[in-house]
C-alpha cells in the first residue's frame, strides 16, 4: 500500500516475513536506510516496514534489498474498497510452523522412544532412527537453520544459531558414527545408564537430542506466534464504529445511501438514537449528542444550528439535519484510527530474553568446543577422541527447554489470568510490568460507572421527595436524553411504576413539560422553569451552586406554578475504585486521573478515590500526548481506559489495560483486557504479569542450567546419549512444572469487599 505525499515522496508499507527477533527488524531497518532517499521503520511485533521514498521509487527495489538480507517482503494486498479494512488472511508463517510441528511430533516421538528405552532398540533401530530423524532435523528445523545463516552473515547469534548449531552437530556426528564409526553395527544398543564414564563417541548417536530439541522449540515458537497480537484488529474495530448508512437529504427528499458515498457539503438527516454519519455542522434542529465514546464526556452535549458534530457519536435527542464537512479518512474517527496504528507500529518490541542470552552463550560455547579440541590434541590424545569431545560440547549446549521457557509460563499465566478475568495479549508486554511506576486512569467508565445516576434530591421544605421524584420520572421517561433516563430509572426504582403523562412536550436542550395526575409539571433547566415563572428559592439556588461546583448536573422540577425540587445527576464512582487506587499506591505506583471531562467533575471524583494528580479537559489526541510526556520524564506508564478516546493512549502506554466493559477499540488497542470491569483487576493484572515474567526468567535459568552443568562432562569426553537425553528431559520437565506453579496465583478481586455492588454498574 502506498500513499503519495505531493512534492515530497511516497510512503510504502511492506509485509516482512522471516523475522525471529527485534534484532532482525533492526537489521532490515539499517539496510533499507542505507538506500538513497529511503527512510524506513521496521516493527517486529506487527511484521511491517513503513518506508518513505522519493516519488516514483520502485517498491521492488526495497523487496529485493530485504530478500538480500535474508528475509521476505511483499506489498500487502489492496483493500477491496477504499477505506475498507482488509479481511484477515491466514498467516502463511503460522500455517507452515504448524505443519512442521505436526511432522516433527510424528517423527520425533519414535526416535526419542527408541533412544531412551533399550527394550525398543531392535536390530537396525539406529538406521530407523536416522530415517525418521533426518526430515525432522533438516526440514522441520529449516527455519532455524535459515535464520542462523542470516545471523551468521551479519556476525550475530541468537537462539536460532544455538538450535541450528546443536541439532546439526548432533545429526552430523550421528552420521559419522553410523557410517564411519561403530554405531551402525547391527545389534548396537544404548543401555540405560546415567553413569559418568569415558565413552566411545564413534559408537554413540545423538539423534534423539536433535529431534527432541527441534520438536520442543517448534512447539514453543508455534504457541508464541499464535498469541502475537494483530495490530489490524484495533483499526478494524475503530472503523466499524462508524455508521454504515446515512439518510441523504436532497431537495427535501430523504434517500438511504451507504456512508461511503457521502461527500463533503451534502446534507443528511439524523434521527434520535441514530449515529451521526460523519463530521459535520448542524443545519437545522436541536438535540443532545452523546459523544462519550469519542470524547469521554459523560454529559451529553447540547447542539443547535451552527454547532459542529463528530461522526460516530449518537444523537440522543431530536431530529437533526447536518451538513457533512469531513468524510472518509479525514474524519475524527479516522484520525483516531491513524493515531492508534501509529502508536502500535511505533511500540518497540522487547528482544526476547532467550535471544539476548544466546547472543553471549553461543560464542562462549563455540570457544569452549575449540578449547576442548585444542586441549585434547595438546594432551596427545587421538584426533577422533578430540573431535568427539568438541562436538559433544556443541550437542549438549543446546538447551531443549529454551523454546518452552517463555510459552509455557505464558500459557499457564494467561490461562490463570483468564480465570480471574485478565486477558494478557502476548509476552512482549510482560517486561514493562516490572518497571511500571505510574498508572494513568481514565475517569468515565474506568474509575466511574460511566452512567448518569441520580445522586441527590433536594426539595423545598414541606415538599415530599417521593412525589417530586415520581412526577419528574414520569415525564422524563418519555425522553431519550441520558439525564432524563437516569431520573426515570431512579424514580421507577424508588416509587414503583410511573404514571403516563396525559400531555407531553419535549423542548430540545431545555427540558420537558406535561400533565400528570392533573398537575402541570415542568422538568428541565432552571431557566425553563423561570420562563414558566417558577423560580428557584435561595435554598435550592444554594444547592444548585454546590452541586455544579462538584461537576454535577442539576435538573429542576416544578408543578402547579412553583419550583419544588432539584434533582442532581452525576456519574458515580465504582464501589471498588477507591480500594483499587489504594492497592496501586501500596505497590508503589502513582495513580493519575486523566479525563476529557471538566476540571470540577474530575477533581471531585479524584478526591473520592484518593487520587492527587488530575489532568482534565483533555482531547482524545492529547491523551496520548500526556502519556508520551510522562514517558519522556522517565516514567514507565500503564494506562487504564475503556473508550474509543482512550485507544491512542492505551497503544502508546508501556502497558495498556482496557476495561472489558468498554469498547472493542480500546480492548484491541490495549495489552491486557480486564474482563470484569473492576479496577482492582488492574492491580491483579500487574501482579500476575510480574509473576509470569519471574517464572519465565526462572525457566530460562534452569533451561540452561542442566545443559551448562553437562558441559564439563562433554568436554571431558564423559557424555553419553542417555545423559544428554536425561538433561533434555529434566530441564523440560522442570520448566513445565515451574510454569504450572502460576496456577496458584490468587487475585484481590476474588476476595470479598465490604462495599455493596452498584446495581446500575
Amino acid at each position, binding site marked *: 500500500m502506498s500513499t503519495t505525499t505531493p512534492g515530497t515522496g511516497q510512503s510504502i508499507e511492506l509485509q516482512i516475513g522471516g523475522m525471529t527477533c527485534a534484532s532482525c527488524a533492526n537489521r532490515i531497518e539499517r539496510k533499507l536506510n542505507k538506500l538513497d532517499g529511503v527512510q524506513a521503520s521496521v516493527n517486529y511485533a506487527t511484521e511491517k516496514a513503513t518506508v518513505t521514498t522519493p516519488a516514483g521509487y520502485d517498491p521492488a527495489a526495497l523487496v529485493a534489498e530485504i530478500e538480500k538480507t535474508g528475509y521476505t517482503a511483499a506489498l500487502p494486498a489492496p483493500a477491496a474498497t477504499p477505506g475498507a479494512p482488509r479481511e484477515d488472511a491466514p498467516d502463511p508463517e503460522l500455517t507452515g510452523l504448524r505443519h512442521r510441528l505436526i511432522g516433527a511430533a510424528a517423527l520425533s516421538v519414535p526416535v526419542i522412544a527408541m533412544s531412551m528405552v533399550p527394550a525398543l532398540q531392535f536390530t537396525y533401530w539406529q538406521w530407523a532412527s536416522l530415517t525418521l530423524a533426518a526430515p525432522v532435523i533438516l526440514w522441520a528445523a529449516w527455519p532455524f537453520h535459515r535464520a542462523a545463516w542470516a545471523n551468521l552473515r551479519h556476525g550475530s547469534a541468537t537462539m536460532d544459531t544455538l538450535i541450528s548449531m546443536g541439532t546439526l552437530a548432533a545429526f552430523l556426528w550421528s552420521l559419522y558414527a553410523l557410517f564411519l564409526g561403530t554405531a551402525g553395527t547391527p545389534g548396537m*544398543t544404548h543401555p540405560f545408564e546415567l553413569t559418568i564414564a569415558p565413552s566411545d563417541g564413534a559408537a554413540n548417536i545423538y539423534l534423539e537430542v536433535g529431534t527432541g530439541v527441534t520438536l520442543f522449540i517448534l512447539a514453543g515458537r508455534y504457541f508464541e506466534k499464535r498469541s502475537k497480537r494483530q495490530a489490524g484488529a484495533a483499526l478494524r474495530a475503530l472503523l466499524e464504529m462508524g455508521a454504515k448508512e446515512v439518510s441523504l437529504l436532497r431537495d427535501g427528499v430523504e434517500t438511504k445511501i451507504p456512508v461511503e458515498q457521502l461527500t463533503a457539503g451534502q446534507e443528511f438527516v439524523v434521527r434520535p438514537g441514530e449515529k451521526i454519519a460523519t463530521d459535520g455542522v448542524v443545519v437545522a434542529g436541536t438535540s443532545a449528542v452523546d459523544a462519550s465514546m469519542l470524547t469521554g464526556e459523560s454529559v451529553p452535549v447540547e447542539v443547535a444550528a451552527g454547532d459542529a458534530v463528530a461522526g460516530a457519536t449518537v444523537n440522543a435527542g431530536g431530529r437533526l439535519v447536518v451538513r457533512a464537512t469531513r468524510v472518509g479518512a479525514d474524519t475524527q474517527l479516522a484520525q483516531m484510527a491513524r493515531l492508534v496504528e501509529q502508536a502500535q507500529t511505533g511500540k518497540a518490541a522487547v528482544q526476547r530474553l532467550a535471544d539476548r542470552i544466546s547472543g553471549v552463550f553461543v560464542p562462549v560455547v563455540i570457544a569452549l568446543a575449540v578449547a576442548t579440541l585444542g586441549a585434547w590434541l595438546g594432551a596427545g590424545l587421538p584426533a577422533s577422541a578430540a573431535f568427539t569431545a568438541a562436538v559433544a560440547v556443541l550437542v549438549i549446549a543446546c538447551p531443549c527447554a529454551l523454546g518452552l521457557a517463555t510459552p509455557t509460563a505464558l500459557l499457564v499465566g494467561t490461562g490463570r489470568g483468564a480465570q480471574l478475568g485478565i486477558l494478557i495479549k502476548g509476552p512482549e508486554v510482560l517486561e514493562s510490568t516490572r518497571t511500571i511506576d505510574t498508572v494513568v486512569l481514565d475517569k468515565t467508565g474506568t474509575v466511574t460507572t460511566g452512567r448518569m445516576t441520580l445522586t441527590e434530591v433536594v426539595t423545598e421544605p414541606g415538599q415530599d421527595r417521593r412525589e417530586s421524584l415520581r412526577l419528574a420520572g414520569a415525564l422524563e421517561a418519555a425522553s431519550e436524553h441520558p439525564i432524563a433516563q437516569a431520573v426515570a430509572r431512579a424514580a421507577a426504582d424508588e416509587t414503583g411504576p410511573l404514571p403516563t403523562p396525559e400531555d407531553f412536550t419535549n423542548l430540545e436542550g431545555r427540558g420537558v413539560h406535561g400533565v400528570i395526575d392533573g398537575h402541570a409539571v415542568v422538568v428541565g433547566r432552571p431557566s425553563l422553569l423561570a420562563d414558566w415563572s417558577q423560580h428557584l428559592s435561595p435554598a435550592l439556588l444554594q444547592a444548585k451552586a454546590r452541586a455544579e461546583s462538584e461537576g454535577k448536573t442539576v435538573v429542576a422540577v416544578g408543578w402547579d406554578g412553583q419550583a419544588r425540587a432539584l434533582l442532581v445527576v452525576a456519574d458515580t464512582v465504582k464501589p471498588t475504585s477507591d480500594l483499587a487506587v489504594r492497592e496501586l499506591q501500596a505497590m508503589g505506583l502513582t495513580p493519575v486521573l486523566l479525563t476529557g471531562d471538566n476540571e470540577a467533575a474530575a477533581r471531585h471524583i479524584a478526591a473520592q478515590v484518593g487520587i492527587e494528580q488530575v489532568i482534565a479537559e483533555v482531547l482524545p489526541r492529547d491523551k496520548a500526548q500526556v502519556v508520551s510526556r510522562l514517558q519522556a520524564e522517565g516514567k514507565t506508564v500503564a494506562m487504564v481506559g475503556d473508550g474509543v478516546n482512550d485507544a491512542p493512549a492505551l497503544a502508546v502506554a508501556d502497558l495498556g489495560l482496557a476495561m472489558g466493559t468498554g469498547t472493542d477499540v480500546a480492548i484491541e488497542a490495549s495489552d491486557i483486557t480486564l474482563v470484569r470491569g473492576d479496577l482492582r483487576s488492574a492491580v491483579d493484572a500487574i501482579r500476575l504479569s510480574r509473576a509470569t515474567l519471574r517464572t519465565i526468567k526462572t525457566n530460562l535459568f534452569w533451561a540452561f542450567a542442566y545443559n551448562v552443568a553437562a558441559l564439563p562432562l562433554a568436554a571431558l569426553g564423559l557424555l553419553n546419549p542417555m545423559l544428554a537425553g536425561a538433561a533434555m528431559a529434566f530441564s523440560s520437565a522442570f520448566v513445565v512444572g515451574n510454569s504450572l506453579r502460576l496456577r496458584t496465583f490468587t487475585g484481590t478481586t476474588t476476595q470479598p469487599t465490604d462495599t455493596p455492588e452498584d446495581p446500575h454498574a
Partner: protein
Amino acid sequence: MSAVTRLALFGAALALVFVASFTAAGALVPQAVVTRWEHQGQTPHSPASTTSHQHGGSER
C-alpha cells in the same frame, strides 16, 4: 563494526583459544592420564556386543 570484521575478530579469538588450550594441556596434563585413557580405549570392544559403551566403571 561490520559483520566481516566481527567474524574475523571472533575467528582470531578462537585461534587464540585453540593455541592457548593446546599449549596449556600439553604442559599440564600428565602422561599417565593419557596412557590410562589410551589403555581404556584398547579394552576389547566388539562391534557385535550388545553395548556400544565402554563401561568406565568396570575399569576404574
